[in-house]
């Protein structure tokens, strides 16, 4: 299948510390890739680099055949690469509907009139399970709903590639079980997706390919099964002497 994203030797230093070092990988159209790694492994930094919120010290990010390094975050969104945040960033004083309308009004969201934008936003809210909550202010929505709102907001920009930064963080099992099929559905609808997630059991059920970062470097890339047997991945999570990955 066609390559949608190609990352070449991506490197980012914070002072003397390499947060991301020589990371390269390829993502194909419609593929769903999981990224795991202990805290501080550089996962969110990698997302910030891909979405233009940080500038890399070296390397290339080829999205749909074009190097997007140096482009502004909104330009990247308008080329079809959207993201959600690990710590949600809703517009607190705006309603659920208005939160999504903003994205619909962006150049890629392509709605000019308020009515069209509201209708599109309403459909999206319904599709992520927030029907009936569109008039509530974002500040009054519970955490689980804010995660869904982030997703709707990203989807409103009609992305081809969706980066989800810990979509399950802070959610209870029931909420995860209802959100997981939604992400699965987005993948089936043809979105290419990269997910950072600490909840490994839930992630492994969702994706067919997982990449592991450790101290900013890619140490493994393969199927969930291969990774659970990879000694370097086990050591990154459990330290030396760790034998099994099954109960993490």
């Amino acid at each position, binding site marked *: 299948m066609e390559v949608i994203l190609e990352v070449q030797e991506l490197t980012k230093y914070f002072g003397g510390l390499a947060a991301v070092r020589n990371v390269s990988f390829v993502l194909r159209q419609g593929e769903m890739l999981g990224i795991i790694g202990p805290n501080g492994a550089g996962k969110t930094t990698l997302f910030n680099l891909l979405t233009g919120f940080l500038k890399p010290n070296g390397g290339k990010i080829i999205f749909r055949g074009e190097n997007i390094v140096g482009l502004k975050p909104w330009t990247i*969104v308008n080329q079809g690469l959207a993201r959600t945040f690990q710590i949600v960033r809703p517009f607190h*004083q705006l309603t659920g*509907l208005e939160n999504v*309308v903003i994205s619909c009004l962006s150049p890629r*969201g392509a709605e000019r009139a308020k009515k069209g*934008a509201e209708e599109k936003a*309403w459909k999206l809210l319904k599709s992520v399970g927030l029907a009936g909550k569109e008039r509530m202010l974002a500040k009054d929505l519970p955490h689980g709903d804010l995660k869904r709102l982030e997703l709707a907001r990203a989807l409103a920009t009609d992305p081809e590639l969706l980066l989800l930064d810990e979509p399950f963080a802070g959610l209870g099992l029931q909420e995860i079980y209802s959100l997981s099929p939604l992400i699965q559905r987005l993948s089936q609808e043809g979105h290419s997706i990269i997910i950072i997630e600490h909840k490994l059991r839930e992630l492994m059920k969702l994706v067919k390919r997982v990449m592991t970062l450790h101290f900013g470097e890619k140490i493994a890339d393969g199927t969930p099964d291969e990774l659970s047997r990879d000694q370097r991945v086990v050591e990154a999570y459990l330290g030396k002497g760790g034998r099994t990955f099954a109960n993490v």
Partner: protein
Amino acid sequence: MPGQENRSIFTSERIGLLIALAILSAVPLFIKDRAIVELIILANIYAVYVASWDILCGYTGQVNFGHALFVGGGAYAAALLNFYFKTPPWVTIFIGGGIAAIFGLIIGTPCLRLRGPYFALATFAAAAVPYGLTDVYWEITGGLDGLYGISPIWPTLAGRYYFSLLLTALCCGLIYAGGRSNKGLILKSIREDEIGAMASGINTTRYKLVTFIVSGFFAGVAGAFYSHNQLHVGPETLSINLSILVIIMSVVGGIGTITGPICGAYLLTIFNEMLREWEELRLLIYTATVVLMLIFVPKGIVPALSEGISQLFKKRKGG
């Protein structure tokens, strides 16, 4: 479809605005005291100052501590053109707005790279420079005394009043409509979370800069009108006192609502004048009232009132 409730709030807000406009239109017909009419002309001008401040600061969250730069820029541009080149007032008002808009572009470009207190300090500093320049080039500007002999915009008081009201209704109406439009919603998203807005595909830099220019234009128009109304221009139009007064009026009225700051402008202008009877206690009472308002109505008068009214309606519906 959702949104019906919001629309009814907007409708009642618009009805309120129309009633306010009708009352203001009747002022010269029923009030024969020239001083009061002059005072309300001043309040009309202040309404444009605060509305133009609010569309930038209340909507995008960038607190401009140097709004007097735009007001004074417009006031001086109009006064100098009229004084030296005899340019008619109806032309100088637009040129004053244009000059202030250019100030918005020039100051906005570097200032918008800054955040929070750094942005506030930069705007504060930017307004201090032209204030000093009026004294340096005193031969042209008249120095601290300013220039006298600017042409009036209308020979009669009633004419001047209606012109000020027309200008206020037009400027505030346009700013209000902008604030309630899609663009206004986008500006609010920048205030709520700029990174979130960027991730929604919004070019936040462009939106902020354009708002800076628009804010400058309307403040400049009002400043230019002020010169022709007072028949005089002086450095007080560029002073930090004016910048702070605009912020106080906006906060008391309720920032980020346009109608709130406008309400604050009228109330505080009239309140300040009423205190003339107790001249020696005036500053104390004025300051104490503002501080008490900030403590007990921190959101501002208009948001507090509209919340109260909507709760009352909910209770009625419920019971």
